[in-house]
């Protein structure tokens, strides 16, 4: 029944079915990431690659200080408290620990239900998508994001960030966001789309390794792994299984205490899709 009434009944039955089964299950892919903090040296190459790949505007020192930077990926620094293990020392025992932080593409994303125009939503690829031309800039999503990874265009950065001839270096596969639009990490959706176009041209499914995010490609120590969790043989799903971390679980039941894998803000039950492998240090 291809009519309005038919559509109402169909969405109704889909909705009630999803409600009974505990959510939406028709994912075609479930893109996820794993970052080994043992390998991370905090070099910021991932962040730089993201700037180049995704046409991120650089905003200058002043706006950066005002938290108006456009970095989709930031490398957070954490320092151990001084004097641990050595009471006389007044310096740090170790250098900083680093944590590359980007949009975690939460399965139960707090940003999605608060958007008044549904500009951010979950795709069948398991991505938390941001549709720029639909966004009206209410900034509710950024306020509801516990990880603070959404960046708002307070200024018309496109006019100032790329003086000629630097605008020739912009990536044509992704738009330059205008003033008043929220933006965030997309897991390099242009590369996902490109890989799926190539796969369709060759008449096959997307294979593991077809898609490489910009940060993954650039990471000098290969700390970042990216792939499809629904593909049982992919590197990423093996990594998740090895670390006994599962989607849809807010408190991981780990058999082996030596497992290093964790996800940020698990206790909030936002079901993030980036697995971090804890850094191990000699005390």
């Amino acid at each position, binding site marked *: 029944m291809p*009519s*309005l*009434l038919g559509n109402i009944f169909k969405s109704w039955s889909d909705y009630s079915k999803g409600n009974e089964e505990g959510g939406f299950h028709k994912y075609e892919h479930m893109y996820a990431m794993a970052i080994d903090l043992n390998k991370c040296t905090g070099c910021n190459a991932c962040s730089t690659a993201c700037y180049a790949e995704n046409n991120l505007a650089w905003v200058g020192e002043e706006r950066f200080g005002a938290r108006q930077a456009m970095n989709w990926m930031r490398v957070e620094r954490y320092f151990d408290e001084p004097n641990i293990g050595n009471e006389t020392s007044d310096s740090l025992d170790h250098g900083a620990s680093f944590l590359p932080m980007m949009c975690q593409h939460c399965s139960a994303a707090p940003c999605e239900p608060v958007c008044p125009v549904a500009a951010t*939503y979950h*795709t*069948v*690829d398991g*991505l938390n*998508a941001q*549709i*720029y*031309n*639909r966004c009206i800039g209410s900034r509710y999503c950024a306020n509801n994001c516990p990880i603070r990874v959404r960046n708002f265009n307070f200024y018309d950065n496109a006019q100032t960030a790329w003086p000629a001839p630097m605008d020739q270096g912009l990536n044509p*596969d*992704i*738009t*330059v966001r205008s003033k008043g639009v929220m933006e965030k990490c997309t897991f390099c*959706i*242009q590369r996902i*789309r490109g890989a799926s*176009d190539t796969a*369709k*041209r060759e008449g096959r499914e997307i294979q593991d390794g077809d898609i490489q995010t910009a940060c993954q490609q650039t990471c000098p120590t290969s700390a970042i792994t990216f792939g499809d969790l629904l593909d049982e043989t992919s590197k990423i799903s093996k990594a998740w299984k090895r670390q006994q971390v599962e989607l849809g679980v807010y408190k991981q039941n780990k058999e082996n205490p030596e497992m290093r894998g964790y996800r940020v803000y698990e206790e909030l039950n936002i079901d993030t899709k980036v697995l971090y492998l804890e850094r191990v240090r000699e005390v």
Partner: protein
Amino acid sequence: MSADRPQHKSFPWIRTFIGAAVLGALIVLGAQVFENQLHPVKAGETPPPRVPGAVFPTDTFDGKDVQQPINYSHKLHAGDLGINCLYCHTYARRSRVAGIPPTAKCMGCHTVVAEDKPEIQKLTAMWKKGESPAWNKVNDLPDFVHFSHERHLQKFLLNNEDMNIKDSPDVCAMCHGDMNTVGVAKKMKPLTMGFCVTCHEKNNGPADCTRCHK
């Protein structure tokens, strides 16, 4: 409710419920009628499809005339002479953009054909200086739209068993109108999101936002 009206003894709100039910039914039926007006179903005589296995979009758009450095006529080349679209717009079958042919491709014919015409003399002068004509864009999609010529040609032309590569003008006409009837190219289809989505609905194209938006 006045006192002299008979009230239902066991269920005094029955009138309200019946009223609400009737109103609801009217809304649903009205929505159906409105839907049928929006997308009328015409019975009977249907012309044979121009592109077999596809619903041809019917919307049209009267675009402005675009000034071009050389008054290239699609009617002459594609219409009268019958040159295939894909001969010049080579990249349409394998890339996102259809592409403008290099001047070398024009000169492939025009070193020996119609050299005496003033427009061709302009072209030859450019070719000798090593320049290419700076064509102006006719069909321009916004920056935030991902459109792949290749995907659409794969579906409607290359992987369509009922279509021959000779029929490419019919497939191109879905979004560009009949280019072999106009002189200098102009926009003949609206190419708005509504135009795209209507065609995607009818031809079972993807409906996910991120498939087209970037």
